[in-house]
């Protein structure tokens, strides 16, 4: 099991603080790195990948520093956002070159497996400069995966991919995470993160704003009422009963049912069935409606 650890890491450029006292541990599975533009996501990724030294703190992979330590690339693959590819090579040559530089025992076999993984086998003998952006991206992912790294860091990996390629990349990352690889990818598209990973690291203005499963993060935000969509056999009577409940701070009623704001998640979810049984009302739908990553992210930004 490979662990990536950041301990009290800061990075500044002159007077500008890009990353401020961040500590996080990445464990096997897929983690999304989220943050608005300029938040410091790429700086964090580059420090993890050994391409930036922290101004303060330590960045380690299995205890070894990532800075000035090429040995980490035996366990780490990187798909940087701005990294270019050698356009004069074919994808097959490019990925095989990666395999040779990793000194793999069967570079050709490893390259074929990596190309298959990203569905690039058919076009693998064309020069990379003739590829679309999405094909280049997949070629880079194949090169980063050729040595089957324990840790894979990807900066905006879905950029330039069409919807089918995105779905394929998402399932690829899922599969790698399920097989025990540690995957961290940054994205500014919340839907992508939501579909690929429940675990997020949210960076806002260089600081780690939240870390963990975003649904759990939402439940810990006790200062914000939780919003539930409720449908029942008698919405109006249920609304009257609910408003008397201490954990409920507001109820709205419309043709779609009830929108209930609860100040305490646990108390409300325990009280609701009790109230419904007491009133003889049948519950048809109960859905937390602000547990999406988008809601959590906007709450964190507003905080």
């Amino acid at each position, binding site marked *: 099991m490979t662990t990536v650890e950041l301990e009290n890491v800061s*990075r500044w*450029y002159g007077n500008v603080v*890009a*990353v401020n006292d961040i500590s996080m541990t990445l464990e096997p599975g897929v983690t999304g790195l989220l*943050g608005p*533009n*300029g*938040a*410091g*996501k*790429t*700086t964090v990724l*580059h*420090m993890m*990948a050994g*391409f*930036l*030294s922290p101004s303060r703190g330590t960045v380690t992979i299995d205890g070894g520093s990532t800075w*000035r330590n*090429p*040995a*980490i*690339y*035996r366990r*780490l*693959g*990187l798909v*940087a*956002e*701005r*990294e*270019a*590819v*050698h356009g*004069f*090579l074919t994808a097959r040559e*490019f990925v095989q*070159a*990666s395999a*040779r*530089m*990793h*000194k793999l025992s069967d570079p050709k076999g490893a390259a074929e497996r990596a190309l298959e993984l990203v569905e690039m086998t058919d076009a693998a003998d064309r020069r990379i400069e003739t590829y679309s952006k999405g094909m280049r991206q997949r070629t880079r992912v194949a*090169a*980063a995966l050729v040595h089957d790294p324990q840790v894979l860091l990807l*900066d*905006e990996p879905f950029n330039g991919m069409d919807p089918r390629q995105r779905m394929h990349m998402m399932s690829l990352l899922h599969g790698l995470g399920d097989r025990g690889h540690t995957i961290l990818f*940054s994205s*500014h598209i919340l839907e992508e993160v939501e579909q690929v990973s429940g675990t997020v690291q949210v960076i806002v203005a260089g600081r780690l704003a939240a870390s963990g499963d975003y649904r759990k993060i939402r439940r810990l935000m006790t200062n914000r009422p939780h919003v539930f969509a409720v449908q029942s056999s008698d919405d109006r009577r249920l609304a009257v009963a609910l408003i008397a409940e201490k954990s409920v701070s507001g109820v709205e009623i419309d043709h779609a049912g009830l929108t209930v704001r609860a100040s305490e998640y646990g108390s409300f979810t325990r009280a609701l069935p009790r109230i419904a049984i007491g009133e003889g009302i049948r519950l048809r739908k109960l859905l937390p409606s602000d547990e999406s990553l988008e809601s959590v992210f906007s709450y964190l930004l507003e905080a």
Partner: protein
Amino acid sequence: MSTVAWITARGLFGRRRVLLLLPLPLLLVGLALLCRAYDVNPTEWGPPVLVGLGLAVLLPVISLIVGTGVLGSEVDDGTIVHILTKPLPRRDIIVAKLGVAIGVGAVTSAVPLFVAGLLADSARLGLGLAVAAVVGACAYSAFFLLLSLLTKRPVLAGLVYILVWEGLLGRFVSGTRVLSIEQYVITIADKIAPTALLDARVSPTVSIVMAAIFVVGCAVAAVDRLRSFSMAGETS
């Protein structure tokens, strides 16, 4: 050939920049052939063509194109990241790239200089110039490769060294000659084939020792610099 050297050579010959290597050797050999065809006395055309064009312009300019091309272009377009994300000692990367730069620079300079020396005087002078060109290609390539890691404008910095340091200060300020690769090259050629066409101004010992210091010192500094290669932390 290592994979890094193979990618470097493919990159070097795959860019239009490689065409810049052709005009100067053709000009040197063409001028020498012309002078020989018209029976011009070698003492008249030898110094300006062999030294003025061959050793002072052709050798450093070709080394500049190649020396900055093997690494600087990859740093510029970001392809260097593909090589740096491999568990390769940075020393191996620099050695491979320096090897390609020296090989290409030496062949492209030594062959026309040999031909020009042969036409001007003798095979011995041709050999002397060719050997000196190989030594010069080593020192220049290492220096220009280091420049491509130290500055974002290595070609400009290299031209300043060639034109201002060697071309201007080297002519008038004697102390600067100790740090002039051009002077080492002239001395080595003159030592192998003593002739009135070449005017050596530093001792052979200084030339050899300083050329070695340039190669080793610049290579070691480049390895250290590459170990600390950073990518800007731009955030999307």
